[in-house]
């Protein structure tokens, strides 16, 4: 039985004349929380977008829970939620309206009870009638998480989710992510805040000049040393 949540096979991508990803292959299983590191231009966001189906690879394929994102996009897209540094919610709609909208898009049944529970989980229940446009950055990110999880996916993709968050909001996000993994969810995250990322991930992957150069479980490495080595590597590259 293939319990691979994500199956990336020989993915390559070039933008005009620039190679961004070269023959990337990675398998991610249930319960794994993967941190993708790399300096700017290494291909982290591109890889995440290809996994999410927002970009098509030039070569290669991506399967999410067994569904090919290109051939079976509707089934594949139902398997995951995504957050990024932009909240992807509508400022004119209230918190509740935003979540109801996305629940309907994902075909969620009994969405009202679901949404109430979700709002309580992320601590937004008291803000449910507020329009998203007036929420602070931290609260917006909570709404974004709720949006991503409204259909209870098995997989969460996070592209630079800690950008612009204060310490409190960061801490809240880390808690949510850890809770998600504890309940059997799978996470793939990119972030420049490696030290924060390491707090909620159990596997680290490094991309460098469009190649995958490092892939290890955090239990197999000395994370403090990894962090130090990574910072000096990043400094020398920029």
């Amino acid at each position: 039985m293939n319990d691979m949540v994500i199956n990336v096979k020989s993915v390559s991508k070039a933008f005009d004349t620039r190679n961004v990803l070269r023959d990337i292959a990675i398998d991610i299983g249930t319960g794994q929380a993967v941190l993708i590191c790399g300096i700017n231009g290494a291909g982290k966001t591109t890889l995440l977008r290809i996994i999410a189906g927002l970009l098509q690879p030039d070569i290669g394929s991506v399967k999410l829970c067994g569904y090919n994102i290109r051939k079976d996009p509707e089934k594949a897209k139902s398997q995951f939620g995504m957050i990024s540094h932009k909240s992807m919610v509508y400022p004119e709609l209230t918190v509740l309206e935003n979540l109801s909208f996305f629940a309907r898009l994902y075909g969620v049944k009994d969405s009202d009870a679901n949404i109430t529970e979700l709002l309580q989980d992320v601590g937004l229940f008291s803000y449910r009638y507020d329009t998203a446009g007036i929420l602070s950055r931290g609260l917006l990110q909570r709404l974004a998480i709720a949006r991503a999880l409204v259909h209870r996916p098995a997989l969460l993709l996070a592209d630079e989710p800690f950008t612009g968050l204060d310490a409190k909001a960061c801490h809240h996000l880390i808690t949510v992510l850890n809770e998600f993994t504890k309940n059997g969810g799978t996470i793939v995250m990119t972030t420049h805040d490696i030290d924060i990322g390491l707090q909620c991930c159990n596997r680290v992957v490094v991309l460098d000049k469009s190649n995958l150069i490092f892939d290890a479980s955090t239990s197999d490495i000395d994370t403090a040393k990894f962090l130090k080595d990574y910072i000096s590597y990043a400094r020398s590259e920029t």
Partner: protein
Amino acid sequence: MRYFWLSLKAIFIKDIVTELRAKQVLPTMIVLGMLIVWVLRMASEAVLQSEAVIGPVALWIAFLFAGLLAQERSFATEQQQDCIYALLLAPVDEGTIYLAKLFVNIVLLSIFEIIIVPVVIVAFRLNINNWPALIGVLLLGNIAISSVGTLFSAIVQLSRARGALLSILVLVILMPMMIPATFALLLVFGAIPPEMAGTGALAFVGTLGSAVGYMIAFDAVFVVACWLLFGFAIKE
């Protein structure tokens, strides 16, 4: 199938609610439309005997330019907070997104028409001898500009000269339709008496039926084509 209707309805309602709350485009469209009508009215003061001819022309011009504003809004609102990606990430067919936004644009333009037609009638002292025909012709024009505009709005969203580029794209495609559309309105407003239709009055040949038939064919072709091509336009 049921899922298709659910997502279509969801996106449609979402767009209508956000537009009504933002109150950005609709008031601007209406004011722009009225200004165009009155400017043309002032400019044609000297030739008021042909107001039955200028009136329909003024109506189409106001309609086109206000319509362009509505089209630009379609995807401009999705640009904030990267909401367009939220739509693309969802298990919704791109064609469904197109259809929902098409219906939103048709509704917004219809609201505009309800307000602007009386203004034109008053400004140019027009008489309408065929209300159903007027509504039908305006609806067909509405569908034409909305179908093409919704598709092109997705195309120009990244461009800096978004409004200007959208205008030239939409207007060039709609150019052919303006002849039968104007002809139809001239008949409806009595500038060409019905008994004279098809005889070459005002250099037009054809009948109301043939003009409406053309507009129906135009709409059918472009709604289908734009719906099919939308997926290519929206992707990165």
